């Protein structure tokens, strides 16, 4: 499978055995919008297949990560999911990743490994994969950035009803004052689908069932329902746009609601933390690599995220922080929309 992300970055996926078809389906669902027949010189090559513990020269870190020159091997787990992963070409232009997930891990591969890997490659190229929801109307995009559960996905439903197109549910690519779509699959939970919404009818039963499982297992098994943007909201994907405004969402406890302008440096710092927190498990691998190879060009990756966010947001001067009651996230986008119209 080949994917072409806005002609900026190509990536290819190979599955070595048919038992990994679940993972392949999952990747197709996640990045289906970028599917292409072939890509020239892919910057990311992903192989899903057995991963052997390397026998080459390496150093061990925490008895868990094996790190060599330009590569890292690790066995990792999250709850019942576990996977073996091997990255190489960390300091080169093109990176390879080999991963061997167990049955439960296939849903975690895109958010834990693939999306952050694409983000890292974009970072090396001077762009930025921002953790934000992006909506656009008449070529003018509004980005909503915030931590998990701050209402990014809920806002999509309202935005579509108000005639907006979608650039991305969780991530968008910031590229020199413009924003490019990164429409990964929408994460549907019981709490982020507005009551009575005409969208995503197909998935509602599944969502209800998973909510039931979550309650029975006291939050331990918190399954997500994934739907591709194109299927969930047909014809709504917009590929690129200029950035008109960025809103930093701060969900509040209680009824506090306010919108205020925020300085560029403050927004960038908050957004940087947001990106870190979103991909923290990936950055953990990167840090193990940096511990062994401290002179790597990625050793200042946090500063790099910060600087590139700043540089790629250049020209957008409408930066706001919106404090919004976290119990009523479904009303969030209407407030943003009204604010946009009145500006």
């Amino acid at each position, binding site marked *: 499978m080949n994917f072409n992300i806005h002609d900026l970055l190509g990536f290819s996926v190979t599955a070595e055995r048919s038992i990994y078809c679940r993972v392949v389906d999952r990747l197709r669902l996640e990045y289906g919008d970028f599917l292409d027949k072939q890509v020239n010189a892919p910057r990311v090559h992903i192989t899903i297949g057995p991963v052997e513990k390397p026998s080459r020269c390496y150093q*061990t870190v925490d008895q868990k990560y094996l790190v060599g020159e330009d590569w890292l091997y690790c066995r990792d787990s999250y709850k019942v999911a576990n996977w073996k992963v091997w990255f190489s070409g960390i300091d080169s232009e093109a990176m390879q990743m080999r991963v061997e997930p167990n049955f439960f891990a296939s849903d975690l591969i895109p958010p834990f490994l693939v999306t952050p890997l694409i983000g890292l490659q974009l970072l090396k190229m001077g762009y930025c994969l921002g953790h934000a929801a992006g909506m656009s109307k008449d070529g003018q995009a509004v980005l909503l950035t915030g931590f998990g559960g701050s209402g990014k996905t809920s806002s999509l439903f309202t935005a579509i009803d108000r005639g907006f197109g979608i650039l991305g549910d969780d991530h968008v690519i910031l590229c020199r004052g413009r924003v490019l779509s990164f429409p990964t699959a929408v994460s549907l939970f019981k709490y982020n689908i507005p009551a009575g919404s005409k969208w995503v009818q197909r998935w509602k039963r599944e969502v209800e069932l998973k909510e039931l499982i979550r309650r029975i297992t*006291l939050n331990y098994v918190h399954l997500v329902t994934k739907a591709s943007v194109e299927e969930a909201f047909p014809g709504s994907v917009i590929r690129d746009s200029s950035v008109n405004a960025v809103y930093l969402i701060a969900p*509040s*406890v*209680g009824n506090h609601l306010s919108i205020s302008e925020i300085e560029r440096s403050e927004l960038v*710092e908050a957004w940087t*933390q947001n990106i870190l927190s979103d991909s923290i498990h990936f950055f953990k691998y990167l840090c193990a690599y940096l*511990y062994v190879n401290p002179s790597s060009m990625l050793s200042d990756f946090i500063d790099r995220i910060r600087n590139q966010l700043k540089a790629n947001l250049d020209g957008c001067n409408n930066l706001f922080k919106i404090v919004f009651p976290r119990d009523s996230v479904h009303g969030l986008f209407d407030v943003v929309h009204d604010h946009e119209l009145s500006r």
Partner: protein
Amino acid sequence: MWFMIMNSVDSASARKVVKDFDIHGLVKLRLEWDFYRAILEDLDLKLNYFRVAEVDRPDILVSIGPFKPTLEGCEAYDGKYFVRKDFVYCTDRNFQCRWEFQLSGLSGSQLVMNVHASSYNARAALAPNLLVHTLLMPLLEWEFLKRGFLLLHSAAVSKDGQAYIIAGRGGAFKTSVVMDLVRREGYGYMSDERALVAPHLVFSFPTHLQIFAYCLSKLSSEYISPFDKLRLLAYLLANRLGKEREIVVDSSQLVGIAYLSPSTEPFQLRRLDVEAAASKMMANAFLDNFEMPKIVGLGMSPILGCLMAYVAAFPKSRIANIRSEFMSRLRQTLTGLPIYEMTIPLTYGADTARFVREVLTQ
């Protein structure tokens, strides 16, 4: 069953046990425990080298037991971290335990941490203890950094008033190397886990001193067999910290840094420049956030989550600059020192010990 017992004791606990610690007169710490947990606490010997009878105005006050957080006016991040000016609250649960903690007075003169955990099974009964200690270390790091000191994840030894820092991730044989240097070369012990460092100066920071001293005198290596563990437990229950204090050297002049890197390659000695050493130390500090006790069931330190949430909410606060403050202090400390990386084999043996000894004596 266990859960019910724990909860019934919770409501009945009226008596508090207070323990005070004074770390080199720099940071004063007070732990307040519920009565029943004090029994567990006696097994927990991490900081008892710094135990004092009483401190006035502790810089960090840790109160363990049920508390009621007021979250009004907080911003919520990830549905787990609740943040307002100078205040963070965090809660989570898994199959084994449910826990919550709050930090208040983040920029004031006293940092107060409330921790509460209830466990669903006997194995997790240690969770409150483990949780306190995993939460406490980053707070101590922050308090020391505010005073211009670095609390680094590394061992330290001293001889003739000259201290060496021996850094390495988990499994890099720091403890074995320190044991060996103390036993055979007559080095003074400062720490095998954390070192308190200022430019040109190292202060001791022995954690689990009793356990270290026991292993030093009774066992040949840092690895304890199940049988030895029982003997150690009996020893700890029967003895208080006493003559072990004598092996500790309290402060020394910092003269060199060595990183231990277990590797498939043969013995090697490589000189590192300040920038590489600093970025190694930074990565080291970051990776600490992912080394969590298994019982608590966490992949990542909740303090890191709190930090990211707090910085997102208050990008201009002093805490937002913690990384750059750490880095600049680190560069200042490392400048002018000889810094080496020692590549050692993946298994520890007599030749590793000899190699390290030779390097340090040169």
